[in-house]
């Protein structure tokens, strides 16, 4: 893979990451926040794949497999937490879960 395509892939990864970040910051619904985090993770995975392809190294793909596994685990824990929050607060608004203020 040549350098120009790698640049474009990294640019796409950056845009995806920033989009995910912004939606984590502005969304109040916890499920949407979780999805945004997934987008950020996939952006990071894309960056790894692109970089691995650019240098002809397998490391990028290995890292992506790791990220995929980690994301699966994270989603399961995250969904369990969301269920609990909904059970307790009867809402999915993350700002309602501000009991732990100082």
């Amino acid at each position, binding site marked *: 893979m040549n350098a120009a395509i790698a640049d474009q892939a990294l640019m796409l990864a950056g845009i995806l990451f920033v989009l995910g970040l912004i939606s984590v*910051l502005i969304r109040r619904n916890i499920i949407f926040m979780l999805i945004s985090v997934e987008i950020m993770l996939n952006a990071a995975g894309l960056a790894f794949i692109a970089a691995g392809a650019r240098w002809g190294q397998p490391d990028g793909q290995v890292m992506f497999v790791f990220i995929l596994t980690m994301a699966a685990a994270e989603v399961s824990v995250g969904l369990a937490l969301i269920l609990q929050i909904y059970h307790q607060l009867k809402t999915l608004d993350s700002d309602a879960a501000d009991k732990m203020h100082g």
Partner: protein
Amino acid sequence: MKDFLWLIPTLPFLGACILIISGNANLPRRAVSIVGCGSVGAAAILTIVIMIDFLTTGQIPEYTVIVNWFSVDNLSVPIALHLDTLSLVFVFVITFVGFLIHVYSIEFMHHDESFARFFAYLNLFVSAMLMLVLADSLILMYLGWEGVGLCSYLLIGFWYEEEKNGYAARKAFIITRIGDTALAVGLFMLFAELGTLRIQDILTLAPQQWATGSTTPVTICLLLLGGAVGKSAQFPLQTWLPDAMAGPSPVSALIHAATMVTAGVYLIARMNGLYVLAPQAQLWVGIVGAITLLIAGCSALTQYDLKRVLAYSTISQIGYMFLALGIGAWSSAVFHFMIHAFFKALLFLAAGAVIMALHHEHDMFKMGGLRKQMPAVFATFLIGSASLAALPLISAGFYSKDQIIWLSFASQQSNIWFFLAAVVGAFITAIYTFRMVFLTFYGEAKTSVSHMPGNLITQPLVILAVLALFAGFIELPHTFGHVTLFSDLFSTTLPPVTLRPNVESHEWIIQTSTGLLTLVGIAMAYYFYVIQPKIADDIHASTIETHRFWYAGWRFDSLYDAIIVKPILFFARVNKHDFIDKLYSALVELSEMMSALFSRSQNGILRWYIMGIVAGAVIIITFTLIITP
């Protein structure tokens, strides 16, 4: 005998422990008296056994270790005792006179609620005082030194329900503390210079280390003198002793006359090797003694309270001892200490009997005529007074004081002022002593006698009276008798006095004139207070200002109040809310403020936290990009 030495300070200590633990409620009075007197009595018997052993064989147990406190590597710190003839004399006086005073106290304190507490303190005092004089190192001596200070405080304030007694106790404690601080600094300097605080090591090392008159030994000696001055109530720290009379009479006899107040004399006599290296400091010892004996004598002339007269006379007599130390007459000072312990304990005990008989009346002008009512007390008090006034030939006090007066003329280190002070002091002593005798025992009876002293009071008085009469004969001057039993004891422990050339021929002139001066003083007191009491009133009226000045102890109390106490109280008032505290409270306020500020950021809203993480990440990445080239 070496094996028994450690028992001497330990026995009274055990007695004190038993009495403190059992308290007032758990032991009957009889058991308390047996424990209290028995422990000191046993120590006295042991001392006498050691003395007899010494007198017959010439052997003395020199050094003995009670316990090894700790030993690390090649440093071992033992609690060790050292006995030589100097400490033997002190131990004898402490245990023997102490025992008599304990016996006297059984009757004197019989109606007091805190009977056991009294004996516990007295035993603790005797133990600490023995530790002081027997200690092998200056650290152990300092332990005893502070121990007797503590007991003095406890016993002056024994009747603590009255506020003024507590005040007197605190005053004594704080003023002696000034001296103790000087002493402690002196000990630190000694240790820094010589690397040891064992007395024997110091006395051998010091002459190798320092030239005579160099600055270090002079400084150390002056600091030690500071400690001695505080403990022995000498000028300028003498103000605590007259107030210390707030304690019971046996306490005044034991602590504030016979033993504790002479600890300063012991310290200087013990450190004689240092003072020989520091002639300037030794001169100051003499100057302090001379000033003290005069100002205290003048104050004694004007007092009304029987016990205060005795207190001022104690200060004055210890002034004589300091004068003797200052002119290098070491053994004379110790001799006068011993005789003084006998007659001053006697006088205080007799005064206690008088005061008890007259419903706790202290004012001599309200006494009188007791000669016929209390003949035994009168006879013993008269003997004690004769000894204090140094009545020629028949009293022990004459032989000890005469020796000091003679040596203040003849010694190489003396000067004419010391001699004049000693002679004038002797004259004043005769007047105030017999003023006291005539006011108390002659004239008309003004207060009725309520309580006749019993056997336990009169017998110690008689024993002490015998000693106050005859103890002087173990040391007679060259002009007649020439007995030197007492000074021979010190041939190895204390340096001899060096006389000026060609003075021996004057000795009898000085003895006769001081003897005559004493008689004139007694005659004057008799004339003023018995034959023509009106003249005494006239003199009193014409010199009312001086009288008041002397009565108030030369206004030293007011002086110290004005220059020390008042400024300190002023600063304490100004600085009531300690300004150094402000620094720390500001620190507390600052951290509380910061905590409030930062706890706002913990608002529980998840998106703010994410924002924080993002901002942090951005800042870190930016910095990394800037720093890496």
